[in-house]
């Protein structure tokens, strides 16, 4: 393997790590740590493995069939089921995009001291201009690399000297202390939903087509999905450990999006706070662009339009207007002043309900010889794919009742 290829893989991994954490991970990992300390770390492992399994499948489908997932959803499930999936995914994408924008605006407010409502349109404008101007690869990478500032959470977690034996016990599911069983289960569902958000697989598979992946990129797909997401999962561990070390003993309930940044500030002072806020802005800002693009990809692929950043915006005008419209609608939602933390919780929980509609077609297509030829799922991919599909079905049924009964994890 030559140096250029190694560099390309390393760059892909770095951007996957920096781009792993979004607003859902930030909220749920911090709240879970502040409520159950390290006891839910095992859920992050399950969630990260799930997104690895399905992202690898998506990337493989895109590289072999040269077609993104949503293009095949309709072909495989028909118009009615495809349209239902489209509507559900668009609602979830919009909610998620709005939550991410709220997160960007709050961090900008903490950095600048300017009014939150002024910073919402400013943040959206910067994101829209970035998405308009930057080529696809650089949207993914620029935000991913700057999102690596979140590694300050990992260093803070180590510097806080947690009892590592307790941390290790968190990786084994079992009895719990610190909250009711239902609240515990609510966080299990929320953490899985945050790790396996549907827009990630839509964006990943469309991105693979935008990047022109072919059979030669199957190795790159495996490495990016496995190492990138696995290392990204370490950021989730760090968020939970920091919250468990700092917020739980002080009975701080992180009901504010800026609260997680207090962890690095506690350990490293102002530099820590600055790195955490910059990391959150870019990780969450990148996710806002990804959600708006995922929404536009889905619409364009369902109706068969021209799509992609590789196209001139005017040539693929419906695709272009779609991602701009998602930003505009998300802006309106955030401007209502609705609490971004609540919005995030709703977006994650509703995305859990939509998960089966997203993941079943991927599993079906990845097993279809017509599209995949010799690259259909092997035994391991199918075992894990089916296992996760059952998990997804269970949490999809449980998500909304748990949210209502526990008042969004408040008990």
């Amino acid at each position: 393997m030559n140096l250029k290829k190694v560099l390309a893989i390393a760059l892909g991994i770095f951007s996957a790590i920096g781009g792993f954490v979004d607003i859902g991970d930030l909220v749920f990992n911090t709240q879970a740590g502040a409520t159950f300390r390290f006891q839910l770390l095992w859920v992050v492992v399950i969630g990260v493995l799930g997104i690895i399994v399905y992202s690898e499948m998506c990337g493989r489908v895109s590289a072999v069939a040269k077609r993104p997932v949503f293009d095949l959803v309709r072909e495989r499930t028909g118009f009615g089921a495809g349209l239902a999936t489209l509507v559900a995914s668009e609602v979830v994408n919009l909610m998620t995009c709005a939550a991410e924008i709220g997160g960007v605006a709050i961090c900008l407010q903490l950095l600048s001291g300017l009014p939150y409502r002024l910073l919402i349109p400013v943040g959206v404008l910067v994101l829209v201009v970035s998405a308009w101007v930057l080529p696809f690869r650089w949207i993914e990478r620029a935000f991913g690399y700057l999102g690596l500032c979140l590694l300050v959470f990992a260093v803070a977690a180590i510097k806080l000297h947690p009892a590592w034996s307790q941390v290790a016990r968190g990786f084994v599911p079992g009895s719990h202390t610190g909250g009711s069983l239902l609240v515990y289960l609510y966080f299990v569902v929320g953490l899985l939903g945050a790790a396996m958000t549907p827009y990630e697989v839509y964006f990943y598979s469309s991105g693979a087509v935008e990047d022109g992946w072919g059979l030669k990129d199957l190795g790159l797909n495996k490495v990016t999905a496995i190492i990138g997401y696995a290392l990204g999962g370490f950021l989730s561990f760090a968020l939970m450990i920091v919250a468990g070390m700092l917020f739980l003993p002080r009975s701080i309930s992180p009901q504010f999006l800026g609260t997680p940044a207090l962890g690095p500030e506690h350990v490293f002072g102002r530099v820590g706070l600055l790195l955490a806020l910059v990391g959150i802005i870019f990780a969450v800002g990148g996710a806002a662009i990804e959600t708006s693009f995922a929404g536009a990809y889905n619409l364009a692929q369902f109706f068969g339009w021209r799509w992609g950043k590789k196209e001139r915006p005017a040539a693929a005008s419906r695709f272009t207007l779609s991602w701009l419209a998602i930003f505009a609608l998300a802006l309106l939602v955030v401007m209502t002043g609705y609490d971004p933390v609540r919005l995030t919780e709703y977006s994650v929980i509703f995305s859990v309900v939509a998960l089966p509609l997203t993941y079943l077609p991927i599993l079906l297509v990845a097993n279809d010889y017509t599209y995949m030829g010799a690259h259909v799922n092997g035994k391991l991919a199918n075992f894990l794919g089916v296992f996760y599909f059952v998990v997804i079905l269970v949490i999809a049924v449980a998500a909304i009742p748990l949210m209502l009964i526990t008042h969004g994890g408040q008990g």
Partner: protein
Amino acid sequence: MNKSTEVDIALGILDHQLVDSEGTNCGKVDDLEIAGLDGDAPEVVEILVGGSAWRSRGLLGRLAARLGGSAVHVRWREVEAVTSVVTLKRPAAELRLNRGDDRWARLVGKVPGS
């Protein structure tokens, strides 16, 4: 390719991607017009794309059709090849399949860098 084989293939391409002669995506196979279903030589005569073509696609299709305007009819003889996508013999513009992007291109085209 005899007529009934042609119909079998056509039914198998419902919801598939349409690609024009220049390799550009230009819609999906939303419905098919089949002639001669009463006799022993049914024949696909047209592909229907967009709008009212969704009317025959279940409850959600009927709802979507109300918002979608009229369908574009593409004669079956315009089909060049059927693979994992349906390739057409002519550019989308000549078959009126680019009207959606054309309609909004003027608006988007006003933005610098478009």
